[in-house]
């Protein structure tokens, strides 16, 4: 039962083969049994889960069933949950009990989804391996000596090991897609503004976007149906109708124009990954798609531009952690400056400090034009590359990452090598476009992710293409040994 998709579980609940309380207990038991190895949860909300499940069963018996009613689910610990610890993977928020719910959390509550707990993540979502979490590294269920990716590594590992049927993630530079790829699951980063950021702890506000992670494109569609939509509490959320993403999953791909950015197939790509991606391209051809070479000439500048823009926004956003209103405060501060400095120095980890300092420098007097303004201009170039490409194609296909999951500790001493693991995902955030990752094969028993990028608000087409691919392949159904 634990190995079923959300769509299948929803059907089991509907036909009364299992109750939500039983299903919830099953996943709570699996978390107890397996999470000591994986460390994918920061907080398990057992009591809340069982009471949510009881309520869901009552709603179902009254005939008030939403497809997600009674489905156990996990929230990345970046989403504020009222009366439940929300740490963002940081010591500075280790004692933070949120006084309110994020809009995404409210929406899942309204559909009577069951909250199993809060998943581990890189501190403030800054990282590509989950190794920067104050709560310790998460392990990849496919190989416990390897990283699950990051920053939504806890969500990815938990879904891959069947500790939850689905989870939320957030993606600022690849933080949904890269861990989905490394853990062999499906994940979508929607268009910027499609999902409310209210109550989603800010890292880089012009890039951050929440999205679902699950085991199939069909499940992503069910979850995105709940998450997407304008929110008056987030003035950057977009007031545009949300389609029912499940309605177009079975559309034919006949005539779908798929673009392959030549820059993403050149240097730095593992040969075996390239071969697997070619096989996926053949599958899409068989499904009726046509393949076109495209160019994204400025994509090589996306990582440098990102590592100015994201730290600049982070240095501003994280100024709020001052030891005064909430979060960690140092012991016996001798004056206000000491209070600020020691609370922040003791509360933040190294990667967060690095990014705050890079951002502070990039925004400081005399350097603003060289770094921040230049990066924002490059962002304009990158966006234009995509706008030009989408004149001729409907979807852009590439690997999600240049390698499979790397070993724990392999990249921690060299921040730049860690940054480069997001080389195919970052440009998508700078342009604000939707992108998803789905499993496309294995190399030495490690999953390989395939990235599909769509035009603005074209999530339905991405999910349609991914679903059709999952009808003719079974990579997304593979189970890591022992789970």
């Amino acid at each position, binding site marked *: 039962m634990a190995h079923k998709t959300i769509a299948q579980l929803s059907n089991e609940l509907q036909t009364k083969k299992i109750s939500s309380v039983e299903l919830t207990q099953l996943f709570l038991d699996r978390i107890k049994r397996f999470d000591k190895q994986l460390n994918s949860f920061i907080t398990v909300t057992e009591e809340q889960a069982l009471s949510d499940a009881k309520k869901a069963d009552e709603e179902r018996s009254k005939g008030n069933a939403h497809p997600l009613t009674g489905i156990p689910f996990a929230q990345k610990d970046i989403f504020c949950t009222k009366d439940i610890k929300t740490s963002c993977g940081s010591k500075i928020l280790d004692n933070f009990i949120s006084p309110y719910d994020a809009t995404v959390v409210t929406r899942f509550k309204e559909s009577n989804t069951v909250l199993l707990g809060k998943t581990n993540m890189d501190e403030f979502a800054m990282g590509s391996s989950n190794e920067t979490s104050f709560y310790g590294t998460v392990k990849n269920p496919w190989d416990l000596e390897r990283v699950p990716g990051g920053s939504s590594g806890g969500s990815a590992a938990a879904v891959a090991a069947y500790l939850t049927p689905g989870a939320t993630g957030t993606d600022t530079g690849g933080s949904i897609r890269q861990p989905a790829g490394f853990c062999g699951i499906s994940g979508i980063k929607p268009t910027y503004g499609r999902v409310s950021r209210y109550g989603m702890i800010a890292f880089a506000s*012009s890039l951050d976007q929440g999205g679902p992670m699950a085991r199939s494109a069909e499940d992503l569609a069910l979850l995105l149906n709940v998450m997407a939509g304008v929110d008056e509490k987030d003035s950057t959320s977009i007031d545009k109708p949300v389609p029912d993403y499940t309605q177009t999953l079975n559309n034919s791909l006949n005539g779908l124009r798929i673009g392959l950015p030549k820059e993403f197939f050149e240097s730095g790509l593992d040969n075996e990954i390239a071969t697997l991606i070619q096989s996926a391209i053949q599958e899409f051809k068989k499904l009726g798609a046509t393949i076109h070479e495209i160019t994204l000439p400025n994509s090589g500048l996306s990582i440098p531009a990102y590592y100015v823009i994201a730290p600049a926004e982070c240095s501003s956003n994280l100024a709020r952690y001052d030891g005064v209103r909430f979060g960690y405060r140092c012991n016996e501060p001798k004056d206000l400056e000491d209070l600020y400095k020691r609370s922040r120095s003791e509360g933040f980890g190294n990667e967060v400090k690095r990014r705050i300092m890079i951002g502070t*420098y990039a925004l400081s007097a005399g350097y603003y034009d060289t770094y921040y303004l230049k990066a924002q201009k490059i962002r*304009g170039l990158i966006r234009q590359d995509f706008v030009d490409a989408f004149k001729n194609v409907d979807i852009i296909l590439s690997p999600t990452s240049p390698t499979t999951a790397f070993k724990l500790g392999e990249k921690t001493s060299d921040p730049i090598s860690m940054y480069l693991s997001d080389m195919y995902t970052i440009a998508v955030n700078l342009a604000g476009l939707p992108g998803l990752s789905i499993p496309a094969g294995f190399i030495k028993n490690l999953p390989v992710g395939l990235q599909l990028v769509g035009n603005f608000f074209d999530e339905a087409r991405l999910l349609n293409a991914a679903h059709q691919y999952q009808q003719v392949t079974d990579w997304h159904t593979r189970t890591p040994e022992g789970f």
Partner: protein
Amino acid sequence: MSLTTTDVKKIAHLARLNLSDEDLVTYTAQLSNILNFVEQMSQANTDSIEPIAHSLELSQPLRPDVVTEMNERKEFQAIAPQVEAGLYLVPQVIEG
């Protein structure tokens, strides 16, 4: 772009962070490497390019000027490190 330890000390102060002498050396090297890496941006000719802060051309939406927020001081102060009589306490700033 190579930073000196003096530069990094100043940046840390602006960001209200303390760095130990040992950390200062490590961060100076790491931040210099990152700045050298982002220096690649100078290769791109952006003379005629408008900077964008955001990829969708958005304007801030307006709403009717009515009260929508309630006073939740009690809830918010319940999670504060130190409060007294509805006020947040910090070390004394002005000499008495």
